[in-house]
């Protein structure tokens, strides 16, 4: 198995994990005309969910973009994204995986990869950026597993030189009702 040297020192542990209890199961239909990632985040935040594991069961885009990875030539990172590919719909979403968490400023962020088939029958897939994937007729269906006492938070990762989701345990609700992020 080939391994690659990252720009930063290898961090430990190599596998980070925390347990969580389920915060409930949700079915979300993001409607036509709405950006998928922003619409998904708004819908989940609207019912009090700030962190969730999401399975996209399928749907349709009116228009979308995706990014794919490629080797990074300047040595700052091992891999980076290439130029976006734009698909004009109807584009059928076959499946996708996503996470809702919070970024370094505390704002909600969705990380999503998906596979689609375009109107000519070609299969594509990659990283879906926010704001550029407009849901088409019939909507997109997402099944979200909400996380009750843990969340995904973006932190800068010196090893890879990327801001990356990290699992974070949450202390039980404190006396004043606020939640505190455990170190």
């Amino acid at each position, binding site marked *: *198995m*080939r*391994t*690659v040297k*990252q720009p930063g020192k*290898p*961090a430990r*542990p*190599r*596998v*980070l*994990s*925390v*347990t*969580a*209890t*389920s915060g409930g199961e949700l079915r979300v239909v993001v409607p036509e005309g709405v950006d998928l990632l922003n619409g998904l985040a708004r819908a989940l935040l609207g019912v009090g969910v700030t962190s969730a*594991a*999401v*399975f996209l069961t399928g749907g349709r885009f009116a228009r979308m973009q*995706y990014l*794919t*990875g*490629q*080797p*990074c030539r300047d040595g700052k*990172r*091992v*891999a*980076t994204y*290439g130029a976006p*590919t734009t698909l004009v719909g109807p584009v059928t979403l076959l*499946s*996708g*995986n*996503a*996470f809702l968490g919070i970024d370094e400023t505390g704002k909600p962020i969705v*990380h*999503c*990869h*998906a*596979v689609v088939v375009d109107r000519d029958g070609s*299969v*594509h*897939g*990659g*990283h879906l950026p926010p704001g550029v994937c407009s849901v088409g007729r019939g909507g997109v269906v997402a099944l979200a*597993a909400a*996380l009750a006492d*843990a*969340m*995904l938070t973006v932190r800068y*990762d010196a*090893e*890879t030189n*990327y801001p*990356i*989701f990290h*699992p*974070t345990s949450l202390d039980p609700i404190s006396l004043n009702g606020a939640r505190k992020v455990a170190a």
Partner: protein
Amino acid sequence: MSARGKPAAQRKPAAAPKPAPMPKGGKPRARKAAAPKPAVALAAPAVPYAMAEDRPGTLATLVERGRYGRMVLARVRPNIDLVAGVERICASHGIAYAVVRSAVGSLVDAALGYGEGESMTLITVEGPGIEILTLNGEVRPDEAGKPVATLRGTISDSDASVFGGEFVRGGNPICITLEIVLQEWLPELQSLPTRG
């Protein structure tokens, strides 16, 4: 990088890509390290499945009643094998059975198998920066109680070509990160008879 729509290497291995050295570029390579031992002893499957009313000569339909348990949020860092990493997550929490609820990440290179047995075909795709588009699968214990992951899904290379299959153990090193949520499955009854 591979040409669009064409894997970097495609061949029919002599045997199915079972947990074994990872063939890459046609040359098998020895696995460097064994998977870590579970931190907590795990229970082996309690009883074999028993079925009713199956037609002679057909395999039994398996029905297992259970419920979901703990969820595990995890990040796997670079150069850890995808399959081994998932098993390591489960072992560290004493989880014998689990399902993948969602996963997003990237690979240095990818090795996917499709077909079966002698006709199993192995696709290897060179990265780095291969995107994991979808990842599905479950973890079940082997006879010794060690969690074993079976993972299938789709990937895309730098040319946006999409490939699918079963992720081969030892052939899918994480590139930047793997974010994954697993949920524990707690079997309650492993021998439900089926009708019809």
